[in-house]
């Protein structure tokens, strides 16, 4: 995950909407954190990309509907082997909820559907997806996941191209803060909304992922990123990178037994 963030840094293309040709020809392995931001950027900017020369990677990208994703439950349910890139739209909340449900269930099944792990799988996905439509001020959100059976872990990425955390705090709470500070406040549970009963989503999801599932968690907003693994939390300024919106990615090992996440609920 650290390597992925480091590799993002030199690219400053994400900040503005301009057409770019992404050269993916030398890709031999892709992860949701690498491929989803690129796909979403292409989708939103009419950018282009050069297909990977590696046939397996190229075919995989086609299979997961890179770069435009699927937004219909019917299309999603046709896919039995791979979890497609899913485009969630604000306009039809019931269709979106069904697509997110299908996505979550497929993620759970890909982890061998161990009874007692449903909550741990569903909690972060549902909380982080609802955050997009509550806070980003954008009408689209994206989710994508891949389970790696040989490595025994699942990578998942959720993102939006909205206003990002710092702008959300500015617009809702009149706080003028840096991207790094905005991430800190989100992790401390300060809701962008005035309601004191809110603000749990990102922080408790990170706890479920890192403490409950022994995974790794990453959040990027604007020019800042936070990487968490176990008890280690590293905040990083990304000087030549600016993601308009929020990217959240996490990696969880395949659970080996039931997991009680209720201690992390607040």
């Amino acid at each position: 995950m650290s390597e992925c963030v480091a590799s993002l840094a030199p690219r400053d293309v994400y900040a503005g909407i301009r057409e770019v040709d992404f050269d993916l020809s030398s890709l031999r392995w892709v992860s949701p954190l690498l491929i989803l931001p690129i796909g979403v950027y292409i989708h939103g900017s009419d950018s282009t990309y050069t297909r990977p020369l590696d046939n397996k990677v190229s075919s995989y990208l086609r299979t997961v509907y890179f770069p435009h994703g699927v937004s219909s439950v019917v299309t999603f349910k046709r896919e039995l082997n791979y979890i497609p890139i899913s485009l969630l739209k604000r306009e039809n909340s019931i269709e979106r909820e069904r697509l997110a449900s299908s996505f979550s269930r497929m993620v759970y099944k890909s982890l061998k559907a161990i009874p007692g792990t449903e909550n741990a799988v569903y909690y972060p996905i549902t909380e982080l997806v609802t955050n997009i439509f509550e806070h980003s001020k954008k009408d689209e959100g994206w989710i994508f996941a891949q389970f790696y059976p040989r490595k025994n872990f699942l990578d998942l990425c959720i993102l939006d191209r909205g206003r990002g955390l710092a702008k959300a705090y500015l617009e809702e709470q009149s706080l003028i803060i840096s991207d790094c500070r905005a991430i800190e406040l989100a992790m401390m549970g300060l809701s962008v909304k005035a309601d004191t009963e809110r603000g749990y989503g990102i922080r408790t999801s990170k706890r479920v992922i890192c403490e409950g599932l022994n995974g790794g968690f990453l959040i990027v907003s604007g020019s800042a990123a936070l990487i968490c693994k176990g008890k280690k939390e590293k905040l990083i300024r990304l000087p030549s990178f600016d993601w308009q919106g929020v990217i959240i990615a996490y990696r969880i090992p395949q659970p080996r037994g039931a997991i009680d996440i209720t201690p992390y609920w607040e």
Partner: protein
Amino acid sequence: MFRAMKNGKPVKINIAENFAPILGSRDVVRDLDRVIRKTKKNLVNLDFAKVDFVSRSAAHELVLLKEKWARRLKGISFINTNEDVAKMLRLVAASRVLPLRKSIKFEPEVVSIKSLARV
């Protein structure tokens, strides 16, 4: 669209069938609110049979919805909830009555991007 039990009994809204089996977003609870508004019955049973999971955010919105309709003399009941859904609803309701105020420390190590490249 919604299957209602007539003849004076409470109206029943099947959540999994009419909405989704995993209830994550606040938006969808607001859609449910619009459906409740259209019912003329004073008792509404929200049937959670085949609902696998309710997020904390959706549970919070459901609790707010129940409170709102109680003020307008319409009773909302959550029925056939599985153990986890019931736990989540109770947790949110309890937290609303008696919030847990914890001071949250968050002190990440601030590192440079170059240090990550060396990992």
